[in-house]
C-alpha cells in the first residue's frame, strides 16, 4: 500500500491543521523512504508470492528492520522527537503517530511478513492480515482513503480561509496524484 497512506495524511491535515502537509505526506511513507536505501543495499528485499509475477499485492516484503513493530516504533519516536524541536510537542506527536500509522495500515494488507523485532530477532511469528490477497478490495480501499482524505482536506482548507482556486488545485492534485500512484502500483511499476 502506498496511495492509501497519502489519503490518511490528507485526513490528518484536516484535523491537525498547524502540521505542514508536506511533512505529513513524507511522514506517512517515511518507513518506505528508509526502506529504499536498505533495499538497494540488499539489506531488505521483496520476493514474489509463489505462482505470481510479484505485481500489485503479490510481494512478500522482507523489510525486517523498517517494518518490524519495534523498528517502526523507534523510527516513529525518533522522527516525532526531531519534529518537536522545530514545530513543538503537538506537531511532533502527530508526525510520530503518522509515521507509525504506516505500520498499522500495512499490517492490514501485508501477507504474514511483518516481524515484531528488527531482523526478525528470535524468529518470532510474523504478522500481516493479508488483505492483499483480494486485489480489487485493497485497491478500492486505497482509492476510498484518498477520496475521503481529499474531501476532508478540501473542507478544512475552505474553513481556514484559503482562496478557492488554490484549495481546489491542491485537492485536485491529491486526488490526481493518488489515482496516478494507485494506477502505477497496480501496474507493478
Amino acid at each position, binding site marked *: 500500500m502506498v496511495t492509501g497512506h497519502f489519503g490518511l495524511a490528507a485526513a490528518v491535515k484536516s484535523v491537525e*491543521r*498547524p502540521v505542514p502537509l*508536506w511533512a505529513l505526506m513524507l511522514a506517512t*511513507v517515511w518507513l518506505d523512504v528508509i526502506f*529504499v536505501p536498505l533495499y538497494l543495499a540488499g539489506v531488505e528485499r521483496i520476493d514474489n508470492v509463489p505462482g505470481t509475477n510479484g505485481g500489485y499485492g503479490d510481494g512478500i516484503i522482507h523489510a525486517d528492520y523498517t517494518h518490524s513493530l519495534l523498528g517502526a516504533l523507534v523510527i516513529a519516536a525518533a522522527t516525532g522527537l526531531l519534529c518537536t524541536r*522545530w514545530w513543538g510537542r503537538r506537531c511532533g506527536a502527530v508526525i510520530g503517530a503518522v509515521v507509525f500509522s504506516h505500520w498499522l495500515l500495512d499490517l492490514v494488507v501485508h501477507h504474514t511478513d511483518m516481524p515484531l523485532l528488527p531482523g526478525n530477532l528470535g524468529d518470532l511469528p510474523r504478522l500481516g492480515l493479508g488483505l492483499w490477497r483480494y486485489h480489487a478490495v485493497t485497491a478500492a480501499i486505497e482509492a476510498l482513503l484518498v477520496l475521503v482524505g481529499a474531501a476532508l482536506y478540501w473542507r478544512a482548507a475552505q474553513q*481556514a480561509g484559503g482562496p478557492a482556486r488554490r484549495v481546489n*488545485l491542491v485537492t485536485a*492534485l491529491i486526488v490526481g496524484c493518488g489515482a496516478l*500512484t494507485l494506477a502505477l502500483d497496480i501496474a507493478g511499476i
Partner: protein
Amino acid sequence: MSYLLGTILFAALIGVLDAKLPWPKPQKGGE
C-alpha cells in the same frame, strides 16, 4: 519503487502549494 519516488516528488509539489494557504502556524513549545 519508482512510483514511491515519484509520489514523494508529487507530495513535495502538493506541500509547496498547500504551504501558501492560511493554515494556523505550529506552536513551538507545545500546547
